[in-house]
């Protein structure tokens, strides 16, 4: 299933980018292009070969980790992607982790105290938080902490090996702006998952044997709510990865997103295909992992046992 999805996605990406009359050469040659030079460039880049051949070459190359070469610079796409991947991955995972850490307790609170002021306030805040564009939050945060208060760098990036402390300091604001919006979304899901738990009979049993609300929710609610939450987190990871793309622009981080935007502006399809394909692979991988996670969480899915 995974393989089929991968194949389908790759075809989609390739077709979207290259099936149409490529003016790649024209762009590259700029204003000095003549029909002859365009044709020559096309030939040089291998763009005058049949679509299927080009796809086959690209797909085969990918299986070896070779994503082709940039049309503009000739650099291997892999070499362009490699240094940017850690940046984006760190940003995304840290943001999601922080969002989960924030959203779990707040979501549980919102569920338990939903008929009280504090629970309702949390829900309202989450609603507002969801409406805020992450990149706007980033700009405002960099304004507040980077410019006005000057406690954190407003933008830029420092490699981990150069200085771990500076690396961390430069990632704080981007991670927070992404996490802020993600946690708002997650709070609502966590809340609804736990509200469902509150109506379950096994929660009532837990209360009847003497657990207070908090412990009952944690000991019994968490694992039961996890099923739906794991699904949501899987979906959110995709949206976090994409959100990272934008945040990297706000804070000038040399990540995958920056690469994508720069080459999209130049319409250098090889690079774009490579990056998008990679992102799609990541997303599909996460989906597959969530399926595995289900089996861990819900014993009912494990074996078709006798009674």
């Amino acid at each position, binding site marked *: 299933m995974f393989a089929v999805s991968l194949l389908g996605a790759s075809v989609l990406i390739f077709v979207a980018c290259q099936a149409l009359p490529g003016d790649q050469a024209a762009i590259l040659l700029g204003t000095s292009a003549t029909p002859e030079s365009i044709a020559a460039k096309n030939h040089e880049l291998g763009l005058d070969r049949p679509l299927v051949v080009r796809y086959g070459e690209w797909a085969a190359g990918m299986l070896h980790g070779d994503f082709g070469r940039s049309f503009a610079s000739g650099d291997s796409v892999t070499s362009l992607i490699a240094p940017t991947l850690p940046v984006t991955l760190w940003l995304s995972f840290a943001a999601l982790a922080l969002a989960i850490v924030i959203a779990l307790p707040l979501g549980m609170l919102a569920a338990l105290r939903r008929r009280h002021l504090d629970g309702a306030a949390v829900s309202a805040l989450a609603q507002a938080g969801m409406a805020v564009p992450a990149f706007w939050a980033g700009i405002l945060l960099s304004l507040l902490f980077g410019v006005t208060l000057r406690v954190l760098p407003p933008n830029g990036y420092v490699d981990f090996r150069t200085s771990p402390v500076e690396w961390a300091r430069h990632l704080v604001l981007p991670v927070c702006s992404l996490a802020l919006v993600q946690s708002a979304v997650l709070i609502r899901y966590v809340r609804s998952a736990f509200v469902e738990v509150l109506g379950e009979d096994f929660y009532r049993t837990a209360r009847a044997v003497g657990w207070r609300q908090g412990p009952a929710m944690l000991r019994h609610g968490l694992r039961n709510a996890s099923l739906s939450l794991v699904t949501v987190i899987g979906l959110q990871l995709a949206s976090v990865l994409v959100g990272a793309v934008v945040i990297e622009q706000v804070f000038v981080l040399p990540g995958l997103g920056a690469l994508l935007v720069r080459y999209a*502006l130049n319409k250098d399809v090889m690079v774009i295909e490579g990056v998008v394909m990679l992102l799609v692979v990541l997303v599909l991988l996460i989906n597959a992992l969530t399926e595995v996670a289900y089996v861990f969480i819900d014993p009912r899915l494990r074996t078709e046992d006798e009674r």
Partner: protein
Amino acid sequence: MRRASLWAGVVLIGFVVVTAVVSRLWSPFDPVMPVGTRLLPPGWPCVLGTDAFGRDVASRLMVGAQGCLWVGIVAVGIAALVGVPLGLLSAGLKGPASEVLLRATDVAQAFPALLLALLLAGAFGGNTVTAMIAIGLAAVPQFLRIARAGALTVLASDFVLAARACGIGRVAIARTHVLPNIAPLVGVQASVTFAMAILAEAALSYLGLGTQPPTPSWGSMLRDAQSVLFVDPLLAVWPGLAIAVAVLGFNLLGDGLRDLLDPRLREVA
């Protein structure tokens, strides 16, 4: 209490719609041409001041509402017009064809709107149209799923079985029974997708891959504002606030509709 969500959403959206409509006929100044000194603070006559090029911020904000609504309408339109029929089809089909469609939907769902938009922008160049199409296509799977789930529920209900027993054809059933019953579900999804579309378009414009200058767009206004952030921080507040208000409005509307329709939904099932 539930209704508060609905009405709050309607009010906020109304605000945006009215602004967009009014700006079509009139705005304080020309949104594209510079009108005064650059980076003026809020005051008179430029109520919200001017931007880095000397353009009136208030006028640009107002006209930006138009773009925001257009993108939402077109994107949701594409998503619904493609997704709902496909969803109905998949509910009606049995066997391998249905499976294939479902798998394809799963694959399609792996493409967040922004990613698809970046892809299209790279291939065709970024502009409002590619943004609208990309966002619309990316939202198709959600509409497909909603339509399919709703249709399956309706098709299993007694009155549909009775209709089929009377020999009424499947298309007629789809038209008279399925569509009216899934309309509320689709409506809720439309509201939610609209909100997502606004956010996505804003992000794309911010990146330079959406609405192209000089047409005002809240996203690109934020990018302009960022370059003068140290000098005039207020410029970064207004467009972001506008986006948040619009998105909040549609989210609240979606929530309100969902709460409103919940008891009714159960009646269908």
